[in-house]
C-alpha cells in the first residue's frame, strides 16, 4: 500500500476513533442518529401542520417524500463537509494537527481521510433518518401514501449519487479548512452557516423556483442542489421523478461542480498552508 493510502486509512481510523472512541460505538452511532431523525420529523410535522387538509390533497404524499429526501440529505452534507474545519481547529488545541506535519504525509490526506470517515457515518445516520421518517410519516398521515421507489436498481443509483457528492463536500471542507488555519475563534460557528445555506439554497425543503432570481440561479448551479435532485430522481417514482436521463444530467452537474469545488478548495488550502508555515500560524490557538 502506498504511503498516501496508508495515511488516508489512518486518518479514517482516527476520525472514527475521535467520534466513537469515548463511548460504545453503537451508542455513539445512536446518539448521532437522533439529530437527523428529529430534523426530518420536524420538517414532516411542519408540513403536516401547514396543510390541515392533507388527507384531501393527492400530492401531499409526494411532497412529504420530497421533504424526507431533502431534509435527510442536506443534514448529511452539513454533517460531514465541515469536518476538515473541525480537524484543523480542534487539532490545534489537541496538538494533533501539528503532529500531522511531522508525519511522512501532509495535512491533505489527513483531512481527506477525516472527511471520508465522517461521510460514512453521516451517510449511515441519514439513511436511518430517511427510513424512520418514512415510517413515522406513514403512521402520522395514514390517508396519504408516501411514494418511494426502492429497488435493486434505484438503491445503487442513490449510493452512486452519495459517492459523487463527496467531491463537492470535500472541496467545501478544504476551503473552510483553509480559513481555519488562520482563524482562532468562532470557526466552530461555521457548520451552522453551512447547514443554513444548504437548507435554503440546495432545494432541500422547497423548490429553488420560490427564491428571487439571482439567488435562484446561485442555488441551481450548486453541486449540492444537483446531488439532492439526482437522489430524488433515484429514490422517488414516476411520473414526478424516476427519470434516468434527469438523474444522469443532475449527477453530471453534481460531478462537474464537485470537481470545481475540490480544485478551488485544494488550491486555497495549499495556499493557506504554505502561507501559514511562513507566518507561523499553523499552531496558533488564540489571537
Amino acid at each position, binding site marked *: 500500500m502506498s504511503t498516501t493510502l496508508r495515511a488516508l486509512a489512518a486518518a479514517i481510523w482516527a476520525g472514527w476513533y475521535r467520534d466513537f472512541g*469515548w*463511548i460504545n460505538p453503537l451508542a*455513539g452511532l445512536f*446518539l*448521532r442518529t*437522533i*439529530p*437527523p431523525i*428529529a*430534523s426530518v*420529523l*420536524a*420538517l414532516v*410535522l*411542519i*408540513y*403536516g*401542520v*401547514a*396543510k390541515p387538509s392533507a388527507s384531501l390533497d393527492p400530492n401531499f404524499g409526494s*411532497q412529504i417524500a420530497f421533504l424526507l429526501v431533502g431534509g435527510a440529505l442536506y443534514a448529511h452534507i452539513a454533517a460531514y463537509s465541515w469536518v476538515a474545519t473541525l480537524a484543523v481547529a480542534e487539532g490545534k488545541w489537541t496538538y494533533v494537527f501539528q503532529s500531522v506535519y511531522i508525519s511522512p504525509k501532509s495535512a491533505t490526506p489527513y483531512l481527506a481521510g477525516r472527511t471520508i470517515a465522517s461521510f460514512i457515518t453521516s451517510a449511515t445516520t441519514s439513511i436511518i433518518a430517511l427510513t424512520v421518517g418514512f415510517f413515522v410519516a406513514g403512521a*402520522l*398521515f395514514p390517508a396519504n401514501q408516501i411514494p418511494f421507489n426502492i429497488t435493486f436498481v434505484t438503491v445503487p443509483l442513490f449510493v452512486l449519487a452519495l459517492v459523487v457528492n463527496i467531491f463537492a463536500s470535500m472541496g467545501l471542507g478544504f476551503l473552510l479548512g483553509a480559513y481555519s488555519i488562520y482563524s482562532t*475563534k*468562532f470557526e466552530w*460557528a461555521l457548520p*451552522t*452557516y453551512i*447547514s*443554513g*445555506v444548504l*437548507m*435554503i439554497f440546495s432545494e432541500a*425543503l*422547497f*423548490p429553488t423556483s*420560490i*427564491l428571487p432570481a439571482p439567488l435562484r440561479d446561485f442555488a441551481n448551479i450548486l453541486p449540492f442542489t444537483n446531488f439532492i435532485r439526482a437522489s430524488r430522481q433515484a429514490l422517488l417514482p414516476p411520473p414526478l421523478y424516476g427519470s434516468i436521463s434527469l438523474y444522469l444530467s443532475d449527477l453530471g452537474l453534481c460531478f462537474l461542480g464537485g470537481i470545481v469545488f475540490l480544485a478551488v478548495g485544494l488550491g486555497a488550502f495549499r495556499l493557506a498552508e504554505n502561507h501559514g508555515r511562513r507566518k507561523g500560524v499553523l499552531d496558533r490557538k488564540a489571537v
Partner: protein
Amino acid sequence: MNLRANLWLKTAYARAWVRTMSMYGEPLWVVVTVGFPLFSMMGMSLLYSSAGATARIGFAILGGIMLSFWGNVLWSMASQFNWDKQAGLFEIYITSPAPISAILVGMSLGGILGTAPSAVMVAVVGWLVFHPPINPAWPTAIATFVITLASLYALGMTLSSLYLVYGREAESFNEALQEPVQLLSGVYFPVYSPVIPLAVQAVASVIPLTIGMDALRRTLFLNNPADVNLVYTELLVLGIMAAILLVVSSKSLKALEERGRRVGSIAVRMR
C-alpha cells in the same frame, strides 16, 4: 442588607457583567450566534410559504427567536461549568466565597442580555422579509416571554450541574439534545395539534419550551379570548417548573460538587 445577601448579589452582578461584556465587547459574537436561528427561521418560513400557509410564517419567526435562547441555554449555560473546569475557572469558583447559585443566575441574566441582539436581528429580518400577520396581546405576551425565559434558563442551570460530571462527552450530548428538543417542543409548529399523538404531546409538555412556545403563539398570533384561561394556566405551570428546576439545580450541584470533592474529580480537566 446583610453580608451574605450582598455577596450573592455582587457575585450575580459580576458574572452577569462578564457574560454580557464578553458578548457586547466582541461584535462578531452576534454574527456567530445569529447564524443558526436566522437561517432556520428563513428556511422554515419559506417552507410554510411553499406549503401555502403564509398565515403561519409568524410561527417560524417566533421559533427562530426562541431558538437563539435555547442555543444559548444549551451551549453557554449547560456546558459552561464543564468548559470552566477545562479552563481552571471552576476551581476558582469553588475556592472563593462566591455562591454557585449566584454565579448561575448571573450567567443566565448575562446570557439573556447577550442573546438579545441575535433574537432581535432574527425578529427584524423575519418581519422585513416575510411580513407575518400578527395579532398580539402585548402585556400577556411580554409576561409569557419573561416566564418562558426564566424556566428555560432554570433548565439550563439544572443541565449545567449534570454536565459537570461529564468530560468532553457533554458536547456530544448537547449535539444529540438540540434537535430532539426542538422537535418535541414544537419550536416551529404547534405541538398541541391533532396531527401529533397525545402521548407525544404529554412527553413534550415536560419541556418548559413546549409550554412557553404554545403560550407565546397564542398571545402573539391567535389572541383568541377563549384561550385566556389556558394561557394563564400555562404561565402558572411554567412558573412552577422554573421553581422546581431551580431547587433541583441547586441540590444536584451541591451533591455533585460533594461527590467531586470525595472522588477527586472536581478539578480533572481532559478526560
